[in-house]
Every structure is written in structure tokens, then in C-alpha cells.
């Protein structure tokens, strides 16, 4: 489904990703962990198509296509979904209108008929239950005045409505209390299937107690330095990232802190 080979990405002349290799097959859940500044979010953003990143080398194949050639909306229509770490507030754009417009763009691309307002409402109400959201959110501007937890649930709602084949969750657990985390993870788990794949980017092991991954990768200084199964996450939880920062199974790289 997703094949990343030697991907190198820079921002403002600085190399952030220094050769990423990752293969995700249908139905798999991959967790990408790592300390702050290791490049986890950059990877998620680049896959979703955010502008402002320079592709310095490597390639990304998605469902047989060159993903990096596609515009963000084309990626979304092809089934790529990014749950934002910081969902954007868009005053004046009604959430229901936004969701229906997005869904219909995706449906038209898939050769399905557009949904009427009534059909859409029926669908969205079943999805709202999945993330335990009040239908009143549909009549509010996108994310405007939403709490941190509400914003994250709204991301999962959008995912549930758009039914992507590849979902990228960028620090979806950050800023969530345990109840919200449980709801969000529950929403994700109900969307797991033999066809759908997930890449879960997270700093903490906590989320992975609820969304159990098939593979765990440790990203450090722009490279995947270790890969394993879910036990790797527990190991990191116990020992922290210091050991990886120390040598990381690769020639030691000095951490430059921050960013």
C-alpha cells in the first residue's frame, strides 16, 4: 500500500528526514515513535502533501502511484488521510457543509453519486456516535472554539466519514485526557480492517495501549533507527529515548536539541 524508499526531506535548507525506509501493507498498523524533533511530524505532513518541504531524494509509492507527484486533494481522494496534530480553526465554514463537500469530492472521484443533505446527515449521525460527539458540532464553524479533545475527536469523525485506506495519525494523543484518548482510540479501532492501514505517529507509548500496532519504528534524527513489534514500545516506555540518543544502533549522531 505504502512504500517509502530512502526519503530525504529538507526545510529551509536543513535536512530533516535523512533516508526513511518504510513499507506498510494493507491492514497493518505501524507506530512511529521518537523524541521531539526527530522528524515524525514532518514525515506525516510530507505524506499528506503539505507545501514548504523540499524533497531531496528517494520516493514514495502509494497504491502503485508516485504519491509525491499528487496534490493534497488528490491524495485525499485516493484514500490518504492525515489526522492533524493541530487541527485548524476555520471561522465561518460550517462543519457539516465542509464534511459533506469533502465527502462528495471523494465520492465523485471514486465514481459514486453525491450524497444529498439528507443522506449525508443520516450517515454522519452514525459516525458521530462512534466518537461520542454531540450533533450540535455540525452547525459550528470548523474547530472554532473547540477544546483540544473536541478537535481531535473531530479529526477522527472526518476520518470515519471519508473512510481512507491509509490514515496518518499525527500525535493524535497529545493533549487528550484518558477519556478522550479512549474515545479517539475506540473510533480508530472500529475503522481497522483487512484493507485499511494506519501510521500512528506518537511520542508516548500510552496511545499504543489502546491502538495496538503490528509494528513499531523508532525515528531518530531523520532516520528509522529501530523497528520491532509492540514490545519495542514497552521497552521505550521503560528506558526512554536516552539509549537511542546514545548510539541508536547507528553511528552516534549528536542531537542538536529542539525543533
Amino acid at each position, binding site marked *: 500500500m505504502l512504500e517509502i524508499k530512502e526519503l530525504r526531506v529538507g526545510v529551509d535548507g536543513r535536512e530533516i528526514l535523512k533516508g526513511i525506509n518504510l513499507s506498510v501493507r494493507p491492514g497493518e498498523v505501524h507506530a512511529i515513535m521518537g523524541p521531539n524533533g526527530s522528524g515524525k511530524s514532518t514525515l506525516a505532513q510530507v505524506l*499528506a*502533501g*503539505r*507545501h514548504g518541504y523540499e524533497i531531496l531524494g528517494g520516493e514514495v509509492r502509494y497504491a502503485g502511484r508516485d504519491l509525491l507527484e499528487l*496534490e*493534497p*486533494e488528490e*491524495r*485525499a*481522494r485516493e484514500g490518504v*488521510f*492525515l489526522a*492533524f496534530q493541530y*487541527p*485548524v480553526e*476555520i*471561522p*465561518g*465554514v460550517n462543519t457539516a457543509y*465542509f464534511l459533506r*463537500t*469533502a*465527502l462528495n*469530492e*471523494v465520492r465523485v*472521484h471514486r465514481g459514486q453519486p453525491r450524497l444529498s443533505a439528507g443522506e449525508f446527515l443520516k450517515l454522519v449521525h452514525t459516525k458521530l456516535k462512534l466518537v461520542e460527539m454531540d450533533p450540535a458540532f455540525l452547525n459550528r*464553524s*470548523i474547530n472554532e472554539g473547540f477544546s483540544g479533545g473536541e478537535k481531535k475527536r473531530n479529526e477522527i469523525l*472526518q476520518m470515519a466519514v*471519508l473512510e481512507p485506506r491509509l490514515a496518518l495519525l499525527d500525535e493524535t494523543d497529545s493533549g487528550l485526557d484518558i477519556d478522550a484518548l479512549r474515545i479517539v482510540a475506540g473510533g480508530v479501532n472500529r475503522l481497522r480492517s483487512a484493507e485499511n492501514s494506519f501510521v500512528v505517529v506518537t511520542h508516548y507509548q500510552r496511545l499504543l495501549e489502546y491502538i495496538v500496532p503490528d509494528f513499531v519504528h523508532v525515528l531518530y534524527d531523520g532516520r528509522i533507527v529501530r523497528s520491532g513489534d509492540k514490545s519495542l514500545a514497552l521497552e521505550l516506555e521503560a528506558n526512554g529515548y536516552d539509549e537511542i540518543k546514545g548510539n541508536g544502533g547507528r553511528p552516534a549522531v549528536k542531537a542538536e536539541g529542539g525543533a
Partner: protein
Amino acid sequence: MSESSHGSWIDLHREAMRSARPAGPDFLEPLRAAAHARFRERGFPTLRQERWRFTDVSAVAETAWRRAAEGEGETALPLEDLHADPAAYRLVFVNGRFSASRSRLPGAETSFSVQRLSALNDGVLEPAARRMAETAGRTEEPFALINSALAEEGVVITIPDHMAVLVPLEILHYVDGDGIALHPRVVMIVGEQSEALLIESYAGKNGQRYFTNPAADVVVGRGSKLDHYLLQRESASAYHLSYTRATLGREARYRRFALDMGGRLVRHDLEVELDGEGAEASLSGLYMPAGRQHIDHHTTLRHLQPHTFSRQLYKGVLQDKAHSVFNGRIYVAREAQRTDAIQHNRNLLLSDDALADSQPQLEIFADDVRCTHGGTVGQLDQEGLFYLRSRGIGADLARQIMVHAFAGEITGGIGLAPVRELAEAVVNERLGREE
């Protein structure tokens, strides 16, 4: 342009009017003469004057405009599509002349009055004349003086005390004729504890180059409410220079919304006097110039009494090489303690060649006031655009949604539903959006 040529411009236009012997009550003639003399002293504004440094009116000054010929434009298209509210009473003017067949006036049984300036009854003549003379005598605005000197036709509306007129009163001016100038006048006097809705609409046949120079005198009496809508959809080659003066009494509430879509060069000078304790003014505007359109709002809020309240929100969406100007002046007199005034102007530039100038001007002589202002000029939020696109919404539609949301803050606040729907439709049309 020299002063003498300004003098000859107004002389020429006044002479043309006099020789045509416009109908009208006698009181207009001394008023015209006085305004003519005052304009002759001042002349047209130039770019060297602070209040006019962004707006070049030399094209108006250098044109010998003409009065529409008798009957000219009578074959203009049906204008129903331009009506803001089908239920409204309306007075329709084509090329500055009243069109009875296109108008719908309240019946004789109503106790409020809607009359043409050129055919005033004695009952309403005196207050209208007094108000017009007062405005002409004190305004410094050149285009207010031109209107006072050359106005032939207009509408005088008087609402008595204790009356709510819930049917909107719409005045539509349509121009179809190259080189025409019109100087229509509106006088709206709302008594005490009353309520009314006024719609001023200006439109013209596209491609026609003409000059619309309206002036409005508005008085909102004690405890009364007036909602005033200005819908400007002139030809993209037209010049529209307007003046409005509104005076609010104690606890009066005046709400105004201005939509500017048309015009080659547009300037609105608006003066609001909050001249009674607890008076409230809420002004909003949306302008969406494209091509080389130039749209200029100059507002002056005079807080003259304690506990007066004003809110201003003007927003612009600029495309191509359009230019907008917003200058918001807030004057707070020494007596006007506890004044609460907020003014915002926000501009969205959709092109690198568009330009928005935004200037606040505060003159505060009272010490216990809340007065804030803000002006922004920016481009579409890239984060928001990416967010929409990342959900499958195409780049063009995402941009339209964002612009629509920006404008929606203004259109969504329009109280009168038909006007709100019309404004939204006009916005959609300008944005090329189908839904």
C-alpha cells in the same frame, strides 16, 4: 486642475440644470446657490489633500457630464431582478428620473410619508428643508456640496412618532446612458419611538460610463431604530461618490450595511452624529473590487453625548489590480464620557497587485472611554487551505470556501433576510461559485 476650471465645471453643470428648469420646490434654489458658491471656493479635492490622497477624482472633474434627455432610458430592461426585497415599497428612478410604472408606493391611507423631492407637500417640506440647509451649510465634503448644488430629484421619507414601518422602503437608481450625471437626494426623518428599514440601491448598465453623486440625510429620533442598506452595483465603468449624514437622538439605534461590487471609482463619505445619550450606531461594509476598481470608505463617528456606542466592521476582498481605502475617524467630544467605540477593517488580498490602505483616526477629548480599532491586510490562510485540501476539496473550491467564510462574517450579520440572500448571491457570483 486650477480653481477657476473647478469653478467653470460647477458653473457649467448648474447652468445646464437651470436652463432645463427642473421642477422642484422653491426652497431648493437658495440652497443650491449657497452650495454652489461654497463648492466654487473649495473646488475638487486633489491628491495633495490628506483625506483624498489615495483617491483621484480628476476623471470626474475633467468630464462635462450631461443630464439625461427626457425619456432617455425608458426602454431599460425590466429591473425586477435588481430589487432587494420583492415585498418592499419602492421608488425606481431611471437616469435620475422617477419611473412611476416601475415603482410601488404605499397607499394614501398610510400615516408615514414617502414623497419625491420635486413634488413635496407642505407638511413635510419644512423639516426636510431645514435638515438639507443645515447639512449644506456645515459639510466640508466636496461631493456633498456638489449634490446640494445640483440635486433635482430625490425622496423624502418621514416616519411619525410611535410607528413601526416593517415593510422596507427601497430606492433604486438605475442608469442606462453614457456620460450622464445624477445627484439624487434622500432625506429620511424618523420620529420618536419608531422603526423603519431603508434600502438604497444603485445599479447601471455595464460598460456605461456615468457619474452618480447621491447624498442622504438621515435623522433617527429618540428611541427609534433605523436599518439602512446601501447596495452599490454600478457599472464597472461608473463613478459613484456619495455622502451620508446621519444624526441619532437619545437611545436611537442606527444600523448600516454597505455592499460595494460595482463602480470604476467609488467613494463613500459617511458622517454619523451620536447626539443623544445611549445612541447606538453599527456600521458594516463589504467591498469586493476586481480589475482596476477603486473603492474608498471614509467614515466619521462623532460621539457627542455620554454613553454612546459605535461598532464598525468593514471587510474587503480584493482581486486583480483593485485598490481599497478605509479611513475611520472616531471623534469623542469632552462631554461624551463612557463612549464605547470599536472599529475594524479587514482586507483579504487575492492578488499580488491588489492594494488596501487602512487608516484609523482617533480624536478623543473625553477621559473615560473605550475606543479600539484594528486594521488588517492579508492573504488567505495557508493552514486553512491545506486543511480543506487534505480532505479532498480542490484548491479552487477551497479558496472560494475560505473567501466566502471571510465575507460571511458581514453578510451573515445582515438583519433583513432578502437583503442578506441578495448579498450572499452577489458574493457567490463574484467568486464564481455555483452552490
